[in-house]
């Protein structure tokens, strides 16, 4: 729970961690931690670029990576200049005001116990990775420009209001009392709903289901998963917005849930096919991380283990099932982020405990209503994100093609969208200089 207004309460509730923080001063230790946490969350976007980039075919490597890297530019700017205000300025229950637009009034004064600008940047790293997550659903067949336009607009029109609903004390979901510590709903379910719609609107890859499409670089997938895990500590434990006991709890849970998910996923793999796969291990880690995200500062460590283990099942079987459908969610954003996000959010409603610092108890602590609140929040966010995503994509499609031609898709988007190859050997590459490359005297081609 990263609501600023509530942080004092939270700290007070955290076992053995009561600290009286005089509200309006900077806390250097919190600042130190949040500087690092922000850097860690930023790391997640290049990490995702490798996670996703390794899963596609080599001819689409750079395009897939650029879908993440590109978001670090345009989405970051859109957030800074507008989205942040819509999310965190006080407004009504549905959207924040324009008071912080263009960073007006956002300076070094404390917001909670850290400088306001640092809080803004920390949140910016969230929206960047959220937007980048969407790209997995449309990998290998969406053109770069409409993709970037889509996620940039989405970050302002969907992410910012949803963040306001859930995290701002004014927000209607916040006021309902839904628990979302670090963004299970705001980040993962939100992105997955957009991903689902994007996969459907853009349509499947032309050779999907007709040809085997294999990950071209599994070590990159493992690199991505490893760096994502490290970065996720900033994501979850940073959401405590201070270097306190809540941060330590969120950190611990962010260690335990993926460890449990990794063990369960590997076991499911071994049982189903006899072979625990590396792609599976990487996926299991991410699923465990997603599932614990809404719960991280609200549940105890054994509950985190349970959440990581349980959340594995829907995602695992969702992935296996999806491959048999006609839904070309190329890198399984819906199964990995959507299903695990939903499971995590619902289980947060089950396992949350005031004793561990949650602002509300969950089912097991005697408050079954919390599960309903969680479900409502999920449904609202997913529906809103899906609806606006649909409208956005259809609108962009009026202006430009969402997809490359069949020929370009066949040759790979690295060449056709970016004019580059990921792994160039340089053979047969002729340098184009100012004059003609090699002066030919009326070529009389005889043999071709």
């Amino acid at each position: 729970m990263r609501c600023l207004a509530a942080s004092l309460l939270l700290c007070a509730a955290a076992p053995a961690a009561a600290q009286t923080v005089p509200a309006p001063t900077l806390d250097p230790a919190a600042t130190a931690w949040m500087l690092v946490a922000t850097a860690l969350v930023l790391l997640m976007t290049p990490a995702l670029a490798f996670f996703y980039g390794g899963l596609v075919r080599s001819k689409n490597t750079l395009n897939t990576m650029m879908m993440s890297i590109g978001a670090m530019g345009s989405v970051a700017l859109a957030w800074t200049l507008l989205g942040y205000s819509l999310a965190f300025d006080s407004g009504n229950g549905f959207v924040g005001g324009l008071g912080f637009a263009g960073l007006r009034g956002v300076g070094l004064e404390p917001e909670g116990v850290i400088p306001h600008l640092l809080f803004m940047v920390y949140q910016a790293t969230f929206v960047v990775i959220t937007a980048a997550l969407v790209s997995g659903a449309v990998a290998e067949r969406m053109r770069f420009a409409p993709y970037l336009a889509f996620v940039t607009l989405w970050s302002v029109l969907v992410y910012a209001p949803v963040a306001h609903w859930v995290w701002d004390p004014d927000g209607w979901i916040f006021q309902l009392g839904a628990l979302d510590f670090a963004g299970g709903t705001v980040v993962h379910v939100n992105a997955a709903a957009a991903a689902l719609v994007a996969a459907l609107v853009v349509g499947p890859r032309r050779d999907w289901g007709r040809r085997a499409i294999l990950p071209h670089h599994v070590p990159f997938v493992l690199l991505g998963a490893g760096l994502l895990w490290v970065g996720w500590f900033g994501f979850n434990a940073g959401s405590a917005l201070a270097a306190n006991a809540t941060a330590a709890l969120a950190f611990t849970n962010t260690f335990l849930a993926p460890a449990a998910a990794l063990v369960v996923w590997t076991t499911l793999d071994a049982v189903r096919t006899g072979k625990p796969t590396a792609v599976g291990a990487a996926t299991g880690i991410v699923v465990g991380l997603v599932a614990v995200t809404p719960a991280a500062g609200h549940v105890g460590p054994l509950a985190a283990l349970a959440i990581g283990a349980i959340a594995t099942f829907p995602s695992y079987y969702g992935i296996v099932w999806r491959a048999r459908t006609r839904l070309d969610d190329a890198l399984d954003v819906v199964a990995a982020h959507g299903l695990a996000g939903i499971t995590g959010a619902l289980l947060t409603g089950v396992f949350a405990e005031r004793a561990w610092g949650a602002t509300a108890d969950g089912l097991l602590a005697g408050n079954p209503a919390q599960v309903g609140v969680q479900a409502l929040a999920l449904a609202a966010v997913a529906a809103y994100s899906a609806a606006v995503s649909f409208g956005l994509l259809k609108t962009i499609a009026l202006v430009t093609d969402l997809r490359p031609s069949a020929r370009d898709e066949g040759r790979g988007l690295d060449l056709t969208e970016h004019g580059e190859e990921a792994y160039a050997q340089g053979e047969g590459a002729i340098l184009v200089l100012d004059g003609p490359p090699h002066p030919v005297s009326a070529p009389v081609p005889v043999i071709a």
Partner: protein
Amino acid sequence: MKLVVAVIRPERLAETLQALYHADVRGMTVSRVQGHGGETETVETYRGTTVKMELTDKIRIEIGVSDAFVEATIAAVLAGARTGEVGDGKVFVLPVQRVVRIRTGETDGAAVTPVE
């Protein structure tokens, strides 16, 4: 004995393998190559450097067949690999003087008799 060498588009490999399979051709050797022919060149840019790529990725398939099978093999390649666009590739038929199966030392006809 002939060696049929086909240069095809990578994206037609699966179809070509399937067509060869239907034609009961089982043994073959495949490699990744790059070809130059009538296809339009691609331009790539790396910082200040602009290059024309004169070579396009292709797949080379080498199939040792007995004389009677040459026609069927070529037909299968044509059926599997053709798109009708420039760049579909070529088939070369080379004479072979001898074939030896390494596992057994059998030669010629026997060398290319299937295992099962």
